[in-house]
């Protein structure tokens, strides 16, 4: 009985175990049909083997220089990177949304911002909206720090703000490259 095509193919790949291998070997000397089948498989395999892939070296170099750039970025720690990001230099307004557990707590803070409103939430907590110039940001943050026990702070920057990249321009560029895949 003739072995199946799968077995012949596996035999070609040296994936047939001991006794079976012998059986197939013997069969191939006797059966022309199977010999023809396996010769065809050998021919296909040889054709595949002759096929060469395009030269990889230029591609390897491109990858290397890209990875080198990636490596120098990796060395900047996440924390430092965050701090290094500049706050907008442009004078603009900052909207501070402050939710306090106790509104009284806030009232004892700096209350000299002109654009401030207090709203009572359904939950009973108070929401304090403060519109402040960006120059005052530091002062606001400082005062909040002093009373930071139970506060949630959301800082909302105006939509039309323009950010100037002061430092780490390389990082942005690299991120851009990665997105566009031009390397």
């Amino acid at each position, binding site marked *: 009985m003739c072995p199946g095509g799968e077995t012949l193919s596996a035999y070609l*790949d040296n*994936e047939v175990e001991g006794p079976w291998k012998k059986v197939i070997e013997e069969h191939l000397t006797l059966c022309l049909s199977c010999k023809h089948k396996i010769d065809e498989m050998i*021919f*296909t395999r040889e054709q595949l083997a002759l*096929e060469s892939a395009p030269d*990889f070296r230029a591609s390897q170099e491109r990858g290397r220089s890209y990875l080198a750039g*990636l490596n120098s970025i990796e060395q900047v720690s996440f924390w430092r990177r965050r701090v290094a990001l500049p706050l907008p230099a442009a004078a603009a307004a900052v909207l501070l949304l402050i939710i306090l557990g106790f509104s009284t707590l806030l009232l004892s803070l700096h209350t000299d911002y002109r654009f401030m409103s207090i709203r009572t939430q359904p939950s009973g907590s108070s929401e304090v909206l403060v519109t402040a110039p960006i120059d005052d940001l530091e002062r606001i943050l400082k005062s909040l720090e002093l009373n930071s026990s139970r506060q949630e702070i959301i800082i909302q920057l105006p939509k039309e703000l323009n950010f100037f990249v002061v430092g780490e321009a390389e990082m942005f560029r690299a991120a851009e490259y990665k997105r566009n*895949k031009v390397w």
Partner: protein
Amino acid sequence: MKIDQGLFEEAYETLYPLIHKLSYHITGDVEQAEDLCHEAFIKYFERKKPLPDINQTKYWLIRVVKNISLNYEKKKFRQRKAIEKLKRSAPLTADSAEHEYIKKETISRIQRALDKIPYRLRMAVVLKEYAGLNYKEIGAILGISEGNVKIRIFRARQRLAQILKEETEHVSWR
């Protein structure tokens, strides 16, 4: 902890040719092969834990190529559909027909045949013929049994032989 620079360099030097070759035979496109290959090495580069040796690294990279190439394959399938649709609605102009012809000529007939067989068969036969892996290793990478590998490789060979034969007949007719 990051992968040691020396270790990465070694892997990049020794494994790039193989990963590039596999990527090419799987995608059938030089540019895509490069993208795929780079993506795989970036993934390796970003790995937190180093792999024990170069061999393990090789399997790991091949597995990554296999995973990413599936997305490429899906994209290619969608593009082909779109092109077919476009061709039906607007017949090829002389220019684009010539472009098509040149593109076809630069890709070898073997690679074209590989492109014609289903992705899962191509993947198995490429790992066999171009990475020289055995059935067990291929099964581990593809997440299928050795028996399944055997079937896929046989079917791939059958299809390839058929396609190449038809092509030869077609050429001799002209």
